[in-house]
């Protein structure tokens, strides 16, 4: 490893070498240490689905913003928060209900139901936007996931959509973002894959908030209706079909798999415990006391 040419020594490799050098300070302890490490790996392997269920545990791939110590401390804080309230698995397109304490509300608590249209940022700054149409008025609320004032996050319908974000719902007909406030949570079988809702929404005529035609959206059916020839042409000019072959870009915008494994191995045991606890609680809750008929 040390003999490799300098341009092959990536930051992650460098860190590994630094790490081993520190660990093998005492030559006697070295083999033992190695054994432990291998043991750890065999027992603490998080399932690969974790990167989708808990994406905020991965740090931002931007190199200038990386700070391993801060990331680790943040992960500890996130686990602490998750032990206080249940932050369930959800995706963009899922319908959530968030109950948060609100000093301005009459009952000091406010509940908002809506579809998650965006999920962004990492670590303690992770946040999501819920959207709903209430009284024919589109409303959006942004929540920070690890906000201590949030009391409860419920998933009313767990599903995915065809796109990574649903910001185009702002320009779609209101029926596509209207959800009942008193919706009951839909029960799903254990271990069933998350369904993908392949609904295609219809947009309102222009003017739009963004140039949706340039974003290669799968979940919109009628973009082409409202485009002029000029817009179609410029959209074509702005296409970047080569980007999927740009390995360097991909590398810079993602966390390498080895690093992901390391991170999830660190938090796996606690997260797994919480999942089991949740399952137990769900079973407890699913027993409904029969009400008196007379």
């Amino acid at each position, binding site marked *: 490893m040390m003999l490799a040419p300098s341009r092959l020594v990536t930051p992650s490799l460098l860190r590994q070498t630094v790490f081993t050098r520190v660990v093998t300070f005492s030559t006697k302890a070295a083999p033992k240490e190695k054994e432990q490490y291998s043991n750890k790996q065999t027992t603490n392997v998080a399932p690969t689905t974790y990167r989708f269920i808990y994406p905020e545990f991965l740090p931002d791939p931007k190199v200038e913003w990386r700070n391993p110590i801060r990331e680790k401390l943040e992960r500890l804080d996130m686990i602490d928060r998750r032990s206080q309230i249940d932050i369930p698995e959800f995706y963009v397109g899922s319908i959530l209900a968030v109950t948060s304490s609100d000093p301005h509300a009459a009952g000091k608590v*406010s509940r908002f139901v809506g579809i998650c249209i965006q999920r962004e940022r990492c670590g303690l700054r992770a946040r999501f936007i819920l959207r709903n149409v209430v009284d024919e*008025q589109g*409303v*959006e*609320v*942004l*929540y920070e996931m690890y*906000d201590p004032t949030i009391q409860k996050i419920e998933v009313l319908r767990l599903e995915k959509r065809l796109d990574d974000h649903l910001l185009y719902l702002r320009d779609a007909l209101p029926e596509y973002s209207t959800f009942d406030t008193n919706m009951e949570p839909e029960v799903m079988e254990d271990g069933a894959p998350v369904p993908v809702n392949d609904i295609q929404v219809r947009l309102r*005529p222009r*003017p739009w908030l963004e140039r949706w035609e340039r974003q290669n959206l799968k979940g919109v059916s009628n973009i082409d209706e409202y485009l002029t020839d000029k817009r179609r042409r410029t959209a074509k000019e702005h296409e970047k079909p080569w980007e999927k072959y740009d390995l360097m870009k991909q590398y810079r915008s993602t966390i390498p798999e080895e690093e992901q494994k390391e991170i999830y191995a660190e938090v796996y045991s606690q997260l797994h415990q919480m999942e089991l606890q949740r399952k137990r609680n769900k079973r407890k809750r699913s027993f409904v006391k029969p009400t008196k008929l007379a």
Partner: protein
Amino acid sequence: MSFLLKTLKSTSVANAVNAVGQAQMQAKLLHTTPVCYEIRKLARLRVVDNSDLGKRAMAEGRPPRCIHVYNKRGIGLVGDKVLVAIKGQMKKGILVGLKQKQKPKIPKFDSNNLVLIDDNGTPLGTRIHVPVPTILRTILKEKTQAKGADYTKVLAIASRFI
């Protein structure tokens, strides 16, 4: 009852479709810009109470324009008082819901909503037919002084808080 509701709904939908068609026709003829994100002078607003003046202005498709913002920054935020030009008159109003980006937990609306008031802070209408952010309670209470206008009357006509 349900039948009546259904018929009502269908007629309203038909109206909406007509309105959309007209809007499309107009969009082809006129230069239209999207709704302004920032409430500054000449920003178009949407009256959301049931005052006669506001309803007529919105039905005619001539929404009020902000001609002054009563703060030192000149940019209106939730709960700020604005002066608007509506159907050739000058009226005061309170901003109750904006399209601009908001802080976490504060709702962001799809339109810039306005409730018309008179000089004493009494709303011209008797009902607000869209939800209103709860933070308005605190803001309007703070803005109300003992001898000045009482803006909290706007809260009394709100139908739903978010």
